[in-house]
């Protein structure tokens, strides 16, 4: 996953991670964990958090699984508790924002997410946090095949355009998103807009030629990860054809070519019918012998 890698590398380099010196001094043999939080929002709807935990062994970062992490909104208290998560073998875990923090969410346009790990036998306690401002991204596809992304930030109660944000404009594909033209990223102007020409003509879409355009902000220091999609009929109509069910020499046994079946069976049947006849012949000889 491309975004994942980027997020991972990006977050590590940003270093939101502060080693817990107290714990370190108390139990020197315990490992240090890095806890990183990132923030995602898709189509300006439901935000979620991702926690990534790793440790440094001999100069290399290794993901740590099975680490319970508590998530809080802004401050460590009952009313701002987001949830408990446990990392998987890739050192990752994620959580949506529960309705229980609705009151706290309403207090500010900027929030800090706290991730704490209390420590266990192997690792000392660790903490991570992330502060993001509320932003939204919009996508617009013009009739002249230009794609425009608009980025807004919430200031007081109004959405104001943001200048200088790097935006990726792309076509959604299986493992990654294909940029709409050769430019890897676009930067928003003073109206908060960034646009690019769609140059992926006749790229295969679905059976109706629909493709999904995406505009996304990746790993932004202030806003986190924002993404918005729009489906447009700009692709080529594509219905996959494959010869999987055709009879061929490389198909499975129940899809053998007809000619090979005819030849094989006709030879086998003719030869074996002769042999069976000869066995019956033997039985006849036997019967004749018994009669004598």
């Amino acid at each position, binding site marked *: 996953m491309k975004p994942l890698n980027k997020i991972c590398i990006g977050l590590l380099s940003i270093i939101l991670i502060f080693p817990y010196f107290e714990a370190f001094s108390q139990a020197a043999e315990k490992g240090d964990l890095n806890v990183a939080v990132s923030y995602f929002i898709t189509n300006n709807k439901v935000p979620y958090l991702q926690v990534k935990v790793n440790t440094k062994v001999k100069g290399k970062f290794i993901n740590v699984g099975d680490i319970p992490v508590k998530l809080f909104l802004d401050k460590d208290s009952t009313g701002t508790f987001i949830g408990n998560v446990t990392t998987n073998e890739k050192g990752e875990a994620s959580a949506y924002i529960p309705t229980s923090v609705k009151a706290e969410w309403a207090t500010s346009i900027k929030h800090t997410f706290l991730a704490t790990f209390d420590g266990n036998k192997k690792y000392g306690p660790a903490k991570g946090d992330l502060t993001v401002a509320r932003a939204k991204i919009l996508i617009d596809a013009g009739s002249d095949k230009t794609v425009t992304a608009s980025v807004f930030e919430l200031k007081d109660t109004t959405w104001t355009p943001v200048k200088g944000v790097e935006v990726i404009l792309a076509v959604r594909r299986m493992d990654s998103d294909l940029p709409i033209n050769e430019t890897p990223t676009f930067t928003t102007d003073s109206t908060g807009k960034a646009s690019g020409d769609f140059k992926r003509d006749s790229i295969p879409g679905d059976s109706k030629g629909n493709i999904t355009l995406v505009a996304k902000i990746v790993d932004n220091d202030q806003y986190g990860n924002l993404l918005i999609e729009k489906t447009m009929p700009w692709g080529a109509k594509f219905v996959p054809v494959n010869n999987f069910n055709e009879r061929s020499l490389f198909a499975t046994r129940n899809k*053998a070519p007809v000619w090979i079946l005819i030849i*094989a069976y006709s030879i*086998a049947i003719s*030869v074996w019918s002769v042999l069976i006849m000869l066995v019956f*012949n033997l039985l006849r*000889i036997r019967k004749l012998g018994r009669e004598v």
Partner: protein
Amino acid sequence: MENSTIKEKIVKDMLPTDAAAIREEKIIQDLLPQRFGKWGYIWVGILVAICLVGMFAYYRQLRYGLAVTSMRDYASWGIYISNFVFFVAISLVGSLITAVFRLAGVHWSTPLTRIAEVIAVAAIIFASIIIIVDMGSPERFYFLVIYGRVQSPIIWDVIVITTYFFISILLLYYPLLPDIKILLRYKENAGKRLYKFYGFIGSFWKGTHKQYLLSKKAINVLCITIIPVAFSIHTVTSWLFATTYRPGWDSTNFGAYFIAGAFLVGAGAVVVAMYVFRKADHLEKYITEDHFEKMGRILVLLALLYLYFNVNEFLTPYFKMKESERAYLNGLFTGDFAPVFWFAILVGMIFPIIILLFKKGRKPLPVFIVGIMVVVGAWFKRYLIVTPTLLHPFLPMHDVPANYHHYFPSWEEWAITMGSLAGVCLVITVLTRIFPIIPIQETLNEQHETAK
């Protein structure tokens, strides 16, 4: 003692035809299967010992996997497969001597038919055994039946070898029936258990005219059927190689090339067996010098034919020297495989041709030696067909342990291969202990005809 009194009795009872009867009785006495003597037991003992070593080696292979062999990812087939091809080749002789000669109305070959049939049955049994030995997961052998995929040449081979085995058994059995009637007459010669066995498999044969007609028809049908099937077993076996892209295997010549080679090695095996049985069972009167003379001529013809196919197989690629085949061809002609290659060509073809072209070379002993040369040369020829190709792939052999670049069979492979060769000899020995090595009834019939 008893025999002699019986003979005297017959002489007294059958005065008008007594001379003919005595001659007949003599023939039967000569051709009845004989009990093992001292050397017979030693021979069987040696064979059993080799088989047991082979079985122990196979036990190790089952336990530790094919890792006990020297085969690795590049040389993924080794002497098991070349041995398999060798056995399939030898088994082809049953159809040559029996069917081809019978249909062509050649009579001098009668004393050789059963030798050929017995060799064919023994070889085809061990061809199927050795192919199971080569499998990485032999416990899944039955998958070939329940999941068999008709597109695969291996399935063709399974079908055609099963068929050939069955035909060979029938072709051995039908001509045996009249002989079993004779064997049953000599109860004291057979011993209790064998007598019971003869009775079980052939007591119904009374030699009536109706039975004779049915049997004759069946043998004719068998002779016609076995020829295409025999061609198929070896052609399909050659296709195991020729259906791949590899240099040295990617040849349209392969089916005919294999069959020519099979006829040669089969005929070689027959002359070796002829000589051995002639000496061991004192059959000089039945397997005469004339038989060796004639088989010698056939051998020359077959060796020339096989040489012709070899020239076809190697000269044209050598002339072109395609890059993908260069290393392979050089390896054979002047490289690692050159000693074996020239041994197989010279000892397996050229020398036999030269020896057999001389009248003196077609005496029993030289023919016997030539037969051995042909068989040994043929075995190495099969090795050359399998291994050098695998060690010359299209992409370089790289990022593999150093021993993957070469192939020399491990002791387990040698033991199993030798065990299977001993097994073939053992099956032939046992069959000739049970059944007359020369068809008795047919010899008698021919005696009658010549007498008239």
